[in-house]
């Protein structure tokens, strides 16, 4: 596949991620922070996000499984996750976290457990999407092309 084709494929994929609400404008902000001096910035932040998320999800699973549930602790973890997903632009994960926090406030453990599943699902979804997107970017760059700048209005 030649560069132009790859770039168009990338743009199509990006557009779909936005249309489907997986990503929001914050992701574009991150792309703007990448340049020739920091060509790996987005990959680095996304990797940190994955690393951080796995840790938080582990802590969350542990917390909701406790005999006596500490809702404050759960809320603290979800708050963290909400923050990091917002910083990446992972909109659906962020929204799932917001819903989760509401149930923490209500101290509804069943709803919390179900929210955790939701959040996990959304995380796995966006992880797959981002990995695909970044792979496409890698291919473009390897073929000597550059990643298009996108605007989202």
């Amino acid at each position, binding site marked *: 596949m030649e560069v132009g084709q790859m770039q168009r494929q990338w743009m199509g994929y990006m557009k779909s991620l936005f249309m489907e609400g997986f990503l*929001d*404008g*914050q992701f574009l*902000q*991150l792309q*703007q*922070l990448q*340049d020739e001096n*920091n060509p790996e*910035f987005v990959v*680095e*932040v996304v990797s*940190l*996000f994955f*690393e*951080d998320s796995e840790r938080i999800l582990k802590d969350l699973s542990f917390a909701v499984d406790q005999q006596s549930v500490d809702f404050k602790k759960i809320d603290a973890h979800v*708050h*963290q996750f*909400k*923050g*990091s997903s*917002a*910083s*990446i*632009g992972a909109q659906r994960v962020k929204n799932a976290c917001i819903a989760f926090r509401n149930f923490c406030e209500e101290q509804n453990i069943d709803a919390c457990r179900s929210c955790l599943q939701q959040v996990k699902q959304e995380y796995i979804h966006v992880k797959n999407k981002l990995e695909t997107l970044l792979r496409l970017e890698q291919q473009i760059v390897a073929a000597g092309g550059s990643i298009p700048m996108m605007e*989202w*209005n």
Partner: protein
Amino acid sequence: MAAAGEIFRSNLTELLEESHSGDNELHVLAVDDSLVDRKVIERLLKISSCKVTVVESARRALQFLGLDGDGENSDIGFDGVKVNLIMTDYSMPGMTGYELLKKIKQESSVFREIPVVIMSSENVLTRIDRCLEEGAEDFLLKPVKLSDVRRLKEFIMRGEVKDGEKNSLKRRRSSDDCSPSLSTTFSPMRHLCDPPSSLFSPLSPSTLSSKKSRL
């Protein structure tokens, strides 16, 4: 109108940057317990030509500043670390950003003068007011954007140039689109604000516009 404002601002920045001899770089101390946010804020600041030190807690921030009351105080070889701005997350385990702000403002004049900006993912009016009352220069809603950092930098650099000049800029700008009731609670910086941030980031309202909607 917005375009003209932008041109004026960027010319002024160039002017200010030229007038600096050498020590042009702002040194910013950023404090955040989030791994991801530390990475992002560091990049935001570096891309804005700032020297950056990022730490993960308020304790570490105090240590870095030499304010951790270890007895090993600041006078010893404190040629040091000149920090032009502190940006701290609000919600952190242990000491919060708010507590860090209070600590700094309670210090001797050198440290008290360092502008402190609070960052938070939560748009809570009482929180914002409390921070501003305690002397925070500004309150930024997370995720922090490049436009936020640029505006901050301009504000700080104006301060570094001349205090009087800064005040006259404040007065000139106060007729901007900020409503009167906001001017009492917002720091002067808000009067230097960009035109509605919707022109730059349609999806993320600035503190200003969200505060407006709350009123």
